[in-house]
């Protein structure tokens, strides 16, 4: 009887003090337990790892990947100097090569999360160039190239010992689990509670490793999409009004989701149905 009473008790409310390392451990354990046949690194391939037929489709797609044009465009853009003679390479550590796995970072000077998309636009503006749209092809191309140079490198997101960094992480977690929109869905409703299930014709991807493949070519979109596009589209699909791209909430959400996927390899640019 006591055991029954315990089993029926509502789950305890998590302590409000963030513990990112414990969160990441629990997060990865949840998904590896849910999909025991998958290796940890397979989660970065999203729905293609969950369904044998889709996996075959993916292998065939990778022969002539639909993101290749974007990748070529990104490489060319990345190497082309700005009007002032400087280039993207001057704005990033290691000339911007093989660093995707370190973004988002926490900028202790600003006290906020800085995503790769934001850092790229800040680089442009610092060099007298207009920023790109966060949801269109140019930004997708640049991040595709930078992701490609990091392929296979494990996410290595750092949370410094700074209360503002912990607060940003916690805010990202809150956003991830909070229901919104008329359909009353959170990110977790699909990507924690129902990965592998279908929503209409789509197979839902697990949240673990979901950003490792970004940016992605989506057949549904008929083109490339950035992390910003993914977040805003998700909000619209729940009939919620999306926030502006790179709003603090989205930056913090990316920080949280990337951190809990630490150790999983970058696989971007990717392709999804």
């Amino acid at each position, binding site marked *: 009887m006591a055991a029954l009473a315990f089993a029926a008790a*509502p*789950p305890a*409310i*998590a302590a409000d003090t963030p513990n990112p390392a*414990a*969160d990441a451990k*629990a*997060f990865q354990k*949840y998904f590896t337990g849910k999909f025991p046949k998958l290796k940890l690194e397979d989660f970065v391939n999203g729905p293609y790892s969950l369904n044998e037929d889709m996996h075959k489709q993916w292998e065939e797609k990778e022969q002539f990947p639909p993101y290749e044009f974007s990748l070529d465009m990104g490489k060319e853009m990345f190497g082309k100097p700005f009007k002032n003679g400087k280039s993207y390479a001057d704005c990033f550590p290691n000339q911007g090569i093989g660093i995707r796995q370190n973004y988002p970072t926490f900028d202790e000077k600003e006290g906020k999360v800085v995503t790769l998309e934001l850092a790229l636009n800040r680089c442009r503006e610092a060099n007298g160039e207009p920023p790109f749209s966060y949801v269109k092809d140019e930004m997708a191309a640049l991040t595709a190239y930078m992701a490609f140079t990091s392929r296979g490198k494990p996410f290595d997101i750092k949370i410094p010992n700074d209360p503002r960094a912990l607060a940003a992480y916690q805010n990202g*977690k*809150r956003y991830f*689990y*909070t*229901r*919104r*929109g*008329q359909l*009353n869905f*959170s990110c*977790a409703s699909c990507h*924690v*509670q129902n990965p592998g299930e279908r929503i209409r014709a789509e197979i839902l991807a697990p949240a673990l490793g979901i950003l490792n493949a970004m940016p992605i070519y989506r057949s549904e979109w008929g083109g490339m999409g950035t992390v910003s596009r993914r977040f805003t589209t998700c909000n*619209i699909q729940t*009939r*919620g*009004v999306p*926030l502006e791209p790179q709003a603090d*909430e989205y930056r913090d959400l990316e920080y949280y989701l990337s951190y809990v996927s630490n150790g999983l390899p970058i696989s971007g640019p990717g392709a999804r149905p």
Partner: protein
Amino acid sequence: MRKNMRISTLSLVSVLLIATATSVMAAGSEADFKTAYAAAEAANEEAGALRDQWTVTATALAAAKKAADAGNFDQAVAQSKGAEALAKASIFQATSEKEAWKTIEIR
């Protein structure tokens, strides 16, 4: 089960609010529309401050404005009341989720 009940409760609240809002309509005047529209806009702004506006609220507000522009104030008032009900449901959602999100956190 608890999760499904919460979804059902929210859906029911939305439906009841909209039904109530649209069933008590008397013939509307331009002044009625302005009052109803202002109330809906205020509620939607409050939802915006909570970072939880719904697309359907914006659609209902636009439909109200369109009906008023066409001189159909009955329809404009009904759409405004519907928009206000939707905005209030989104405020309810944002407020209840301030703590509720923690119950589904992986830990």
